[in-house]
């Protein structure tokens, strides 16, 4: 816990964290200082001049709050007429050359200029001379489209590429009101985090080619989630919407602040992985490639299980901890072998030293923690001995060529319990659709041994069962969430302290001592 200090805002004493600048310190207690260029991940630049405040201690009449550290006893002046006038005046300068194209701007609804106009301005334009014209819909590469006229030249995008990705593709060129953000000729954005500039942009200057013109942001529901694109488990906001007569569809993932995991950012691949939640899904149950009801297929599965001499159960490294223990209990009850073999989920050398990991699965640490065998030998031996394979959403096509897989499973019946339609479901004798990670709640452990819980974000029209539910229908004894959680506690002692819904939102760092994780 950071030290607390007391200072005065508009004469009222408030307690804030020390060591922060005024925007963050005062912002944390709910008092807004308007700003465009400052971003906590990128530091203070001081160019927008929206955050000018008065400090009553004899220093220069105005200081940028972003560059002023909070100090005990400081008297910050925010609501004085002359400060309010500055906020209004600076905003007017930001707006005079800004196109009034909010009706067709993707940022509308989450735009700082719009918000500040409503809070600090609300007067008619006094601009009676022609506006400055600049470049429109410029393709900056990496799926980023730039509008120089909307840009307020806060430089967040430029600083992101210099300081975070250290690739430096963006720069500010020219002077005066001709100043603009641009790429170097023929050298577009080419880093794997480029789309973060779209989130960083306080206005609609940076837009995502993928999201442009798809949805008005105020129609979308927002739900927190954890990206399953790799073992980092970046926290995300899932923006989704159920349009009239249509299904609940995800339109974008955006990074959600978690200092312990991903900070403010996420990679582009993870960001665009929302598409796999919408598309390519297994939507109906199949028995011998014929569409049947889930109950019919489950009944057939039960018969197969009873008939089978030896069963091999295989699990996905993306399964939640709850799913893993439920299926593990099923395997123990059926005397089945259990494997989490999933070498195909590794993309060796793909990771970097920032967020992207080689391992493209979300919960391999969970598999390991529960002592589930992940070896290739173990898996192949089990498959060869078995007369029935029950595959819980493990995309084996990542680990095997089609011919290899067919050869391996030639003699064996396959039950595929899958969120997506793929070769495995195509080969299966019985296929049962299940929810994908945006459609159920659960916990996963990331590559840094941080346990994170996520909630159910999406409810499809045709609500699919979670793997836990299917495992129970097939005979798993862990029938309730409480039972699963108490089973998990056997493996993860740190969970002993918590109720399932009381796990810290920022995640539980299993590397730390348990005491450190007890929230006050």
């Amino acid at each position, binding site marked *: 816990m950071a030290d607390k200090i007391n200072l005065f805002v508009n004469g009222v004493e408030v307690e804030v964290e020390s060591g922060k600048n005024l925007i963050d310190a005062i912002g944390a207690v709910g008092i807004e200082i308007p700003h465009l260029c400052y971003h906590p991940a990128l530091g203070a630049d001081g160019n927008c001049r929206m955050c000018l405040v008065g400090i009553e201690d004899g220093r220069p009449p105005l200081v940028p709050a972003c560059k002023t550290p909070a100090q005990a006893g400081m008297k910050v002046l925010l609501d004085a007429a002359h400060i309010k006038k500055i906020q209004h*005046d*600076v905003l007017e300068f930001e707006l005079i050359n800004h196109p009034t194209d909010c009706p067709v701007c993707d940022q509308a609804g989450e735009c700082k200029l719009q918000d500040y106009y409503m809070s600090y301005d609300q007067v008619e334009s006094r601009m009676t001379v022609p506006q400055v014209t600049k470049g429109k819909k410029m393709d900056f590469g990496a799926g980023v489209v730039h509008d120089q006229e909307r840009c307020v030249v806060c430089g967040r995008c430029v600083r992101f590429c210099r300081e975070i990705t250290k690739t430096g593709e963006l720069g500010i060129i020219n002077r*005066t009101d001709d100043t603009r953000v641009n790429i170097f000729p023929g050298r577009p954005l080419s880093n794997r985090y480029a789309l973060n500039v779209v989130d960083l942009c306080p206005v609609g200057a940076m837009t995502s080619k993928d999201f442009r013109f798809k949805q008005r942001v105020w129609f979308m529901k927002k739900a927190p989630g954890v990206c399953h694109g790799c073992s980092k488990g970046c926290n995300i906001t899932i923006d989704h919407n159920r349009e009239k007569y249509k299904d609940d569809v995800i339109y974008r993932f955006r990074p959600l602040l978690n200092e312990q995991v991903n900070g403010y950012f996420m990679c582009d691949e993870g960001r665009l992985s929302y598409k796999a939640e919408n598309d390519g899904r297994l939507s109906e149950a199949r028995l011998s490639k014929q569409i049947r009801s889930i109950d019919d297929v489950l009944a057939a599965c039960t018969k197969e299980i009873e008939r089978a001499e030896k069963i091999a159960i295989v699990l996905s490294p993306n399964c939640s901890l709850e799913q893993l223990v439920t299926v593990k209990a099923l395997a123990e009850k059926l005397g089945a072998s259990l494997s989490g073999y999933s070498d195909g989920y590794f993309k060796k050398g793909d990771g970097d030293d920032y967020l992207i990991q080689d391992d493209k699965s979300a919960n391999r640490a969970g598999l390991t923690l529960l002592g589930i065998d992940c070896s290739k030998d173990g898996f192949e031996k089990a498959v060869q001995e078995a007369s029935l394979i029950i595959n819980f959403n493990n995309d084996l096509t990542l680990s095997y060529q089609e011919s290899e897989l067919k050869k391996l499973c030639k003699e064996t019946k396959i039950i595929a319990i899958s969120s997506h339609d793929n070769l495995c479901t195509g080969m299966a004798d019985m296929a049962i659709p299940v929810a994908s990670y945006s459609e159920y709640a659960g916990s996963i452990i990331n590559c840094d041994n941080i346990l994170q819980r996520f909630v159910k974000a999406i409810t499809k029209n045709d609500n699919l069962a979670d793997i836990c539910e299917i495992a129970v229908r097939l005979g798993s004894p862990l029938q309730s969430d409480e039972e699963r959680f108490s089973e998990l506690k056997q493996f993860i002692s740190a969970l002993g302290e918590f109720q399932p819904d009381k796990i810290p939102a920022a995640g539980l760092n299993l590397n730390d001592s348990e005491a450190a994780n007890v929230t006050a």
Partner: protein
Amino acid sequence: MEVKILSAKFDIKDAHKIKVAKEHGAYSTLDKVFAMKPEDVIELVKNSGLRGRGGAGFPAGVKWGFLPKGTGKPVYLAVNSDESEPATFKDRYILVKDPHSMIEGIIICSYAIGSHDTYIYIRGEYTTQVKALQAAIDEAYKEGYLGDKVAGHDFKLNVTVHRGAGAYVCGEETALLESVEGRKGQPRSKPPFPAVAGLYGCPTIINNVQTIASLPFIIANGADAYKAYGTEKSPGTHLFGISGHVEKPGMYELPLGLPLLEVIDKVAGGVWKGRKLKGIIPGGSSTPVLLPEEAKTVTLDYESMAEHKTMFGSGGIVVLDETVDMVHLVKNLIDFYHHESCGQCTPCREGLGWMLKIIKKILSGDGTMVDVDLLRELCDNIEMKTVCVLSAACTMPVRSYLDKFRHEFVAYVTKNDSSAAEAK
């Protein structure tokens, strides 16, 4: 009225060559300096009352005293030769006619502040000057006045000339440092001030050419000899560039404190062609204009200028005769400062462009009283809200023209605006 302190060698043929310069006393103060303690040199300069000649007039010795002690970091000296304020043409004379006085000053200052690296930032357009300066520096290296052992003393000093690329804003000290470091020349937000974290994050002193070139005289003759010139608070001499509508425009070295109108009449020959005086820009284009009535009581020193709500600035005096159209002048002024705005911070970037369009509208005859009042209001809205004072360099003079010559602006908009006719 003229004196010869800084300009002592200006009339000597080939004084830019080290041999001639030495014959006339160049580098003669070094033995004396190196015999002193650095802090005594600072004290001497403090006592002389020498003020920064870049425009702000901050006492040089006091500035040097701001350097933090014992940081373990190198200390840099940056000499500001960007001289880009319109109507200013003083440093260029030193650079071409007497560069060795400046180099001698650099050695004195470097010894006082404990710096071993000097960067001279010279404006890109100064091609003749940069050649002369570099030739002088090369000579000084050859003669042992720069390099590992300055004048045989155990003191190392390297001097690097850095040419600007033509940006006015690079005369602002932190933009200058950014430019030397190889980045886009735009001012840094302060604090930290350069004395604490300047060039490459190290303590840095930035002084104007004329300030540095004033040092040898002070060392040679002492603080009192320097204070014998000028006024109590503005001691010494200054190179004034007098231009505009006078009979004898030119660069004149004068002690501070002389009456402005007397200087214009006696030194510069008075307003040309027998015309009437309309206004005086006292210290470069960024200083508020003075009306003839106001000018009567103005003397050429920092205090008198401040009392008359203008600034001493760079000593670039522009005399305006009765034929000058102040609306055109203001358009010219805004055009320049808008063009030179670095574009970093919002009020200056957007505001000066807006002001330029408004003044153009007024000039074209399409303006109304609303535009005149808006122009005046924008001066207030922009000024002092910005990272540096470039915007103030525009808004301060523009406000002065709008206030002192309002009727001329009103005249331009009268035909469109009946309310303006009444205002007139």
